[in-house]
């Protein structure tokens, strides 16, 4: 009866302050106090590690403690489906390319203002050096009884955010059409990443008990013509694998660009999307107020099978969405989609750019809103 409007995280939290190179005694005390609030075990051990040099000397132990902090925080907040706040990963692109043979960092490229990212260049056929999510999954599995969802950066986004030197060298000049040559080069890279890297990671996770995997494809609609390639890569990465697959897409110009192609993603069960960022803060459940969620009507027209991961928290602001506002956003979705078992509740995206205290407050209100709504529905 309670298996509807399940709450989940999307992925990352900010790297915990325990990763800092230098921590004062006061800062260490604060970290221990915070852990105590979440119910983290073995805090004396953590305190000892932090006093003796912390992350610099004990990187694996600190990564595990940071993951444990995220797990216990999510449990305390009351999320139904959790992971580790991606604590061992420094970022969703730079982290995976460390483990992919054939992709090498080539230099910093501007994202906006003075924010840059270290962009990789594909210099050879990409191959997996090492399963890069297995260890963190096993750690989470051993440390929680909650349902687990593992976020993995998808093959299309990895390709779109990389320079494609190897395949462009192979293709350019071959078809007497630069546009088609570049497309074929990209397609080959995307499919090789799906087959050689993402699929291998997924297989290792499922063989070790993973039941829900989220493929992160924030770049999915950046180039509208390439949405079919996103789907082709998803199918290549997941075919024949028995697991619940979801896909996260965010900050798209228009989610309608995903359709109808996304319906060809054979193993896809859920689309988790960002909405709150484009919505108003006024309460209400009518469509004039909930404009940020207008895509849900198209979603309902396109599919009666896919679940929706409903973004109800704006991850780019410290504003703590009030319980009533979150409740109204979910009620609006319920009004359109009807079936509450198809609706999962989550932040718009990972909360990496917020402090832990802001992230926690936002998530607490999200869970409270769902609980209130469930009481009304039962």
């Amino acid at each position, binding site marked *: 009866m309670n298996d509807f409007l399940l709450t989940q995280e999307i992925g990352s939290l900010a790297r915990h302050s325990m990763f800092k190179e230098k921590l004062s005694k006061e800062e260490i005390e604060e970290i221990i106090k915070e852990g105590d609030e979440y119910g983290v075990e073995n805090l004396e051990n953590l305190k000892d590690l932090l006093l003796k040099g912390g992350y610099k000397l004990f990187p694996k132990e600190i990564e595990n403690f940071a993951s444990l902090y995220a797990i216990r925080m999510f449990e305390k907040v009351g999320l139904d489906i959790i992971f580790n706040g991606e604590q061992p990963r420094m970022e969703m692109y730079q982290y995976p390319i460390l483990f992919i043979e054939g992709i090498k960092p*080539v230099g910093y490229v501007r994202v906006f203002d*003075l924010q840059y990212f270290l962009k990789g260049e594909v210099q050879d056929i990409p191959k997996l050096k090492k399963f890069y999510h297995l260890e963190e999954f096993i750690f989470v599995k051993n440390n929680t009884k909650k349902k687990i969802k593992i976020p993995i950066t998808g093959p299309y986004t990895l390709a779109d955010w990389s320079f494609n030197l190897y395949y462009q*060298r192979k293709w350019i000049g071959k078809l007497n059409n630069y546009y088609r040559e570049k497309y074929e080069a990209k397609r080959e890279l995307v499919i090789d990443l799906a087959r050689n890297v993402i699929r291998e990671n997924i297989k290792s996770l499922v063989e070790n008990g993973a039941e829900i995997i989220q493929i992160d494809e924030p770049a999915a609609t*950046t180039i509208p013509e390439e949405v079919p390639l996103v789907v082709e890569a998803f199918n290549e990465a997941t075919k024949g694998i028995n697991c619940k697959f979801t896909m996260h897409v965010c900050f798209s110009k228009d989610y309608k660009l995903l359709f109808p192609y996304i319906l060809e993603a054979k193993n896809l069960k859920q689309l988790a999307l960002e909405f709150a960022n484009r919505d108003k803060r006024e309460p209400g459940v009518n469509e004039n107020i909930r404009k940020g969620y207008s895509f849900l009507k198209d979603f309902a027209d396109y599919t009666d099978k896919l679940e929706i991961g409903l973004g109800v928290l704006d991850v780019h602001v410290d504003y703590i969405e009030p319980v009533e506002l979150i409740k109204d956003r979910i009620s609006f979705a319920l009004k359109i989609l009807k079936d509450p078992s198809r609706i999962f509740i989550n932040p718009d995206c990972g909360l990496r750019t917020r402090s832990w205290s802001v992230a926690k407050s936002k998530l607490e209100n999200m869970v409270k809103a769902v609980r209130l709504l469930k009481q009304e529905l039962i």
Partner: protein
Amino acid sequence: MKISSYIFGIFPKSDDLRKGMRDFSKGKISKEEFESLLKKEYNHLINLLNSCNLSYIYDGLLVWFDLLRPFTNYEGIELGTLIRWFETNTFYRMPVIKSKIKLEKPVLINYFYNELKNIKNSSISLLDPLSFVKLSEDNYYNNEKEFFNDFSNALLTDIKLVINELNIAFISLISPYLGYHDFKEEELELLNIFLNKLREIKKEMVISINLCFIKNSKKLNKIKKLNADIIGLDLCYGDREEIIKNIKGINKQIALGLIDSNISLIEEPEYLKNEILRINGIVNQKDVIITNSSDLDLLPYNVAMEKVKVIKKLNEIK
């Protein structure tokens, strides 16, 4: 066949410059220290461009964060949220129009290297006013023509000072809007009013308008109506063959945007030479001009430097 060349748009910032900008914004270095660093960076780029025998020399817009940012200093314009820059993984801050646009004091002069005045064939590069209007959020005018007129008037006053003070010989206007979107003829007419006034500032100044991210090339034959001396075409984004087909017989000087700003693969000079000959065989231009496809700051600094050096190598094999 004579080959000329120019580079336009934001050039990537070196590691040193990015660090310097961060340090300066945090007060870790003084204004004098930052200006000294900036001068070094400008001169380094200008020396590179000179060594590659470019026809016009610009400053790389090294202090610009995005092509719209300086204009948010005009009265009536505020800084808005982050918006994706076309189909790239780069974002700009959308200007928001809150009241009538006015130029209270000169803005752009602070965004260009003042030593350009001592350089022969100096050039500047900036967004065209139509693209600015289309990429902004208008919360005041509700009338695009009025918005365009007020903005372009402010821009013309502002740019006049830059052109005169820095003795500018060439201006490259960047137009991602005309490249990417389905524009209307009346929008070209609006832009022409601006171009005519721009020409009046300095008659002998060469004006180019560079269409970036060209997706729909069917409309390209209309571009010849623009009162610009050179039309730059991004030949690396959409279907190059379609673009060439659609500009066949165009009665305008074309600049071939063959230096691909979106990929790290450095163009082989031989490949470029063959492409130039092939394309010129179709579009039949008296002079060949080669340029970049769009802003080079979609690339890391070192890669962009290598891309510029290709022009030098191309000149060596011609």
